[in-house]
């Protein structure tokens, strides 16, 4: 058996790769559903209905996809430059911390200014969290996977300390949570019913902006060149170190905005269950989107639908919600295989 690169990579094949990956994941998960003793079609219909079957379900799926779009973009941008930022979770909480610090009464601006201000503050906080890992990487060649991953725990512990201690809301009846975001800073809901909020519009705008940046700007060109071949990029005069630093700031900033959006848009105040691992799931979102900024949006909505749908399914029949995690995991694995098969062909005989 031999694996050879294809001379031409057809767009159809690249586009169909995620579809096949998802189909393979659903097929493989059927075994688990059968094992749980439920009919497979019934389970998947319940899942689909739970995710898209009603206005409420759709609303919930889209709401859940907002942080995933942000963290997915964060991973997609960074991975394009081969800067493996695994710290999306920590950067998300850093953004949430910034929103809580500025947004709970420290200063009050009209909403038109307050919301952008909180977003920017959160983005800066997310980026700031990456300064040390990225400098360690560019100066001393320290592996960023390790440093960014470990910083997640540092930040989460810091959040735990703050909401149990100095930032604890005295009005919260003893629950470990920070004070609420003031009304001027809250992201307004988009619809009369449901939890969908302005964060979706900001997330979509971010996806378009990232796409435009990667495709049309000098900086985007440099990020792609560094990611594909850092040696050639350096030879051509592209400042490799600086490009990686800029990439890290953009990536951290996007993840930080996820935190602002969750605190100011959904929860209203900072708690430790703000994110059930959106930072990590963002990596899966980016992989499934093949690191394409616009594809991050459907990818995030799909993964969000899996989680929301699996919740509904487990309520209706006796299947644990963990099935959604398994599906997402298998989808990403299948996606990696499918993406490779789009670029390479397998010859079984020499």
């Amino acid at each position, binding site marked *: 058996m031999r694996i050879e690169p294809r001379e031409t990579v057809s767009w159809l094949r690249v586009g169909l790769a995620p579809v096949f990956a998802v189909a393979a994941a659903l097929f493989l998960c059927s075994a688990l559903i059968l094992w749980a003793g439920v009919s497979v079609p019934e389970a998947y219909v319940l899942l689909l209905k739970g995710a898209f079957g009603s206005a409420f379900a759709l609303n919930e799926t889209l709401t859940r996809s907002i942080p995933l779009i942000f963290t997915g973009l964060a991973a997609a941008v960074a991975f394009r430059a081969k800067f493996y930022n695994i710290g999306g979770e920590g950067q998300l909480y850093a953004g949430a911390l910034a929103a809580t610090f500025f947004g709970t009464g420290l200063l009050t601006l009209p909403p038109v200014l307050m919301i952008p201000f909180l977003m920017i503050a959160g983005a800066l906080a997310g980026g700031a969290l990456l300064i040390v890992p990225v400098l360690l990487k560019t100066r001393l060649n320290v592996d960023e996977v390790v440093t960014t991953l470990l910083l997640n725990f540092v930040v989460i512990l810091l959040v735990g300390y703050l909401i149990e201690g100095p930032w604890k809301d005295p009005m919260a009846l003893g629950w470990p949570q920070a004070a609420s975001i003031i009304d001027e800073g809250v992201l307004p809901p988009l619809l009369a019913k449901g939890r969908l909020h302005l964060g979706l519009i900001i997330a979509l705008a971010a996806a378009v902006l990232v796409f435009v940046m990667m495709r049309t700007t000098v900086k985007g060109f*440099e990020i792609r060149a560094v990611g594909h071949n850092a*040696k050639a990029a350096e030879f051509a*005069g592209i400042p490799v170190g600086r490009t990686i630093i800029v990439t890290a700031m953009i990536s951290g900033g996007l993840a930080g905005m996820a935190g602002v959006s969750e605190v100011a848009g959904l929860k209203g105040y900072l708690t430790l269950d703000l994110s059930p691992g959106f930072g990590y799931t963002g990596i899966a979102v980016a992989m499934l989107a093949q690191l394409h900024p616009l594809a991050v949006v459907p990818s995030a909505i799909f993964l969000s639908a899996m989680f929301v749908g699996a919740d509904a399914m487990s309520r209706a029949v006796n299947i644990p919600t963990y099935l959604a995690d398994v599906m997402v995991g298998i989808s990403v694995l299948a996606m990696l295989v499918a993406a490779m098969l789009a670029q390479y062909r397998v010859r079984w005989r020499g």
Partner: protein
Amino acid sequence: MLTFRNVTKRFGTLAANDGISFDVEPGEVLALLGENGAGKTTLMNILFGHYQADEGVVEVDGRPLPGGSTDAAIKAGIDMVHQHFTLADNLTVLENITLGTESLWSLRQDKTGAKRKIAGLVETFGLAVDPDAPVRSLSVGERQRVEILKALYRDSRVLILDEPTAVLTPGETEQLFRTLKALTADGLAVIFISHKLHEILAISDRVAVLRAGKLVGIVETEAADRRRLAEMMVGREVERPALDRVAAGDAVLDVEGLILKSDDGRLLLDQVDLNVRAYEIVGIAGVAGNGQSALADVLSGLRPDFEGKVEHLGQSIRGVSPRHLVERGVGRIPEDRQASGVVGEMAVWENLASEDLRNPAISRAGFIDRKAALSRADRLIEAFDIRCKGASAETRLLSGGNMQKLILARALSPEPAFILANQPIRGLDEGAIAYVQSQLLEARERGAAILLMSEDLDELMAFTDRLAVIRDGRLSDLRPTAEWTIADLGLQMSAQRATGRVEAGLVGAGHAD
């Protein structure tokens, strides 16, 4: 003893080998000549079992060789010395040679027997190498000898050598040729793959010429000459451009007392003095790994941590980034075009733009003017005859020659005052070589100062105004090329390495104890 019968191998619609039939006789050196992509490597990969032929067979002593199995080839007595050696650096010469010949389950190792056999081979074929030295301490020439010993130790009767002289000094090449004569006198058959005509004329008995996957013909070397072989190989007459003498102008590049150290403190460049004037090509000869890359890195702006003086048009280049060097008029052709010349996954137009992204001609306020960049790329593709499916094609799909043309287009089209050409013709076929050289000549005619680093002494002798030899980071005197002979160059290139080898041998002996 070895017969190719109608061997055909297709990759998609391309026939890499098309109905190739010929014999290899014991006791002969058969040279396999052809341009890149002519099918030499594919044919040898079929013989050695890396590929399976779509049609036809290879027969050894009248018996067909089962295709697609390297084991079968080795069992049939065929062995190959690859261009990139396949030795384990951390093992000794003896261990490398016996690796794979002993049963995995045998606990005992017959070291003395193996040593005796190797000593015999070393003696008979003039393959001097210390069996107890670790391979990492050996010079390139010695490593090649270990590879040959490895094949002989397995009692191979057909030895394939893939571009064996590419890494050797002229002296080492001569030694290799003496070994090959001894081998064929002993009844071995040698298949010698090369595109260097003078070597083929010197060593082979017969020459098989491949072109575009087909066997053009087999000629007795005695009846062949350079011109005829070149014509057979290319299919038409190829003249490499010649240099006509013109008076050099003012110094463009001026280097004095240049010192560069590696990260672990070793001296890579030691007091290098060098100047290159307008209207001249200065050559630097040397065996790979003697400081050429270090010098090229400094002149390309990749190593700002040098000591000494390096001036381009009277201005120091210290602290000048590669981007600004390009802006100031330095054109650079990198040594390894795939690794550092182009970004393979990006489009041709993007690679053509990558050195001057902030040039107002193709970008404005941080946004790339795609239209302008594409139309400029179209012009360059046309002007430099880059064969590709268009400016948006992925660069990795280009052939080596076309990739080099892309790099030439990028480096030469801004008409730089100084051009650094590091191994610009390495691995290219005759047509592409002639093209690269004519482009450099054109640049010289308009007054560019060119520094040409090459391992190809023929190229340097024919194509430079002044010439120096680099070894162990030290540069010899820069003399007019007419005052050099190939023998002088060979001596200068290897003199220092001879002592280096003695040191390596001592280190090796120390390790063995």
